[in-house]
């Protein structure tokens, strides 16, 4: 089973919005818009550029690009990450000059293009604009919780391996979770590594407590009204 996200700045938000539509397969995946890595993703390969997919060809070939459009900050060591933003067809890519450093956290910001009349316009969907974080560390995090057919799915920051997880649904531990491979808009080659979500076996869950080893605890609660759609907000973390 696969979950597909489409038109995604951050995978969790997109997953929330399009889970139902794409659960059976994303037929127009090659025209999806996204930025990879997704918000909160970890274990990002050090040799993989940051990639923005737009709905149409970005600019004429060899047309210069505003380098301030996409900026990356090193959250671990501080400072802007030097690199080049290039465009190729409908994709923009940020190549860090020295590659991504291992075990480092980053944040990227995609800004709206400066309005310049009498030039080709770089059309970036508003949903792609903004900022997000990613990391080359291997730590496992809970990125978001989303709803699919009333079924709760917990999106992880990387592929689930042999990690020790403890998950409590409404205070009860021990449910039989299924591991779901996540793709984005049906584009298989966007992610060089698999992303996983864990989907609960039952519907109608009110609260979730998620523990990763002994290091991280996430307590998820729905919005007022009790719907699990309240989990859509990114990194909704109540005091563990």
């Amino acid at each position, binding site marked *: 089973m696969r979950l597909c996200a489409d038109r995604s700045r951050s995978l969790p938000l997109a997953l929330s919005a399009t889970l139902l539509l794409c659960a059976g397969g994303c037929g127009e995946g090659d025209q999806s818009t996204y930025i990879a890595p997704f918000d909160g993703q970890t274990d990002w390969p050090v040799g993989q550029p940051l990639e923005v997919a737009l709905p*149409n*060809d970005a*600019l*004429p070939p060899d*047309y*210069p*690009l*505003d*380098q301030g459009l996409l900026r990356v900050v090193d959250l671990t060591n501080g400072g802007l990450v030097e690199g080049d933003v290039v465009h190729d067809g409908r994709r923009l890519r940020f190549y860090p000059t020295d590659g991504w450093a291992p075990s480092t956290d980053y944040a990227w910001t995609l800004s709206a293009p*400066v*309005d*310049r*009349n*009498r*030039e*080709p*316009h*770089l*059309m970036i969907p508003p949903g792609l604009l903004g900022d997000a974080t990613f990391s080359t560390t291997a730590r496992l995090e809970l990125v978001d919780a989303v709803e699919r057919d009333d079924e709760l799915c917990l999106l992880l920051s990387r592929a689930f391996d042999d990690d020790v997880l403890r998950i409590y649904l409404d205070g009860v531990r021990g449910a039989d979770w299924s591991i779901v491979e996540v793709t984005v808009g049906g584009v298989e080659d966007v992610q060089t590594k698999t992303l996983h979500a864990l989907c609960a076996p039952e519907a109608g869950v009110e609260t979730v407590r998620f523990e990763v080893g002994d290091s991280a605890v996430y307590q998820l609660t729905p919005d007022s009204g009790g719907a699990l759609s309240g989990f859509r907000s990114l990194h909704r973390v109540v005091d563990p």
Partner: protein
Amino acid sequence: MMLLAFLGVASAQDAPWEERIEGDAVEADAPDDFALQGVDVLPMGGRSGLSVGQASVLGGDGGTNAWSVHGRVNAGHASVRVGLPIAAYRTPDQRTAGLGNLTADVLYRDDEAHPEWQVGASVHVPTGRTYTWVNDAEELWSGVGIDALYQRRFGDGPTQGAIRTAIGIHGPANYAPFPEVYAKVDIAGVVDQRISDAVGFVGEGSFSWWDTSPVDLTAMLRVDPVDQLRLRAGLTLPVAAWAGWQPAQVVSGVRETTLRLELHTAH
């Protein structure tokens, strides 16, 4: 070289009203060597000649300068005009320059039955990879296109006018704000008011859609300092762009105007 060749042919041609008529000489006003023309309204009447023009977009949204050369030849009932612009414009990191679209206009007139109107076609062919515009979408932005034209002139004294209507289809390079294909409807009117033998005023208004500047108003002063030479200078006001009515994603406001300088010769 092509333009010069046109001129060579043109100098050997007589304008239609210069046909020699057997019989007594009749005193009459000398025919105007120069055509009645605006910016959108193509030359009507006049002799063959060469034109060199500059259009500079001034203001906060400016920075584009276009220079163009046009050669025009009258041959029988036809008038052929070929032009090529070159543009200097800004990009996010530098200024650059490139060739615009080669334009060929062919107009037919029946000097005996209907000397007041012309029909024809205008064809655009890309010669470079230029991505900017002044007031017309087809002049510089790389692309192909063809328009069918009808022009008609009015008046025969110090005040003359003409209208131009056109409809066409264009296939520009498909980068925003240009669509992949668009149809264009164009209507323009020009008035030429002679002030003295050597000085006149030219005013033009035009509407086009689809266009990067749908409504333009132009005012120019023309001066003929010597025989066979005409200078024109003036401004084009992109009023629709000022109102925010244009396909480009820019806010409304008076941020630009186009300064035009032209030199025309008649042979």
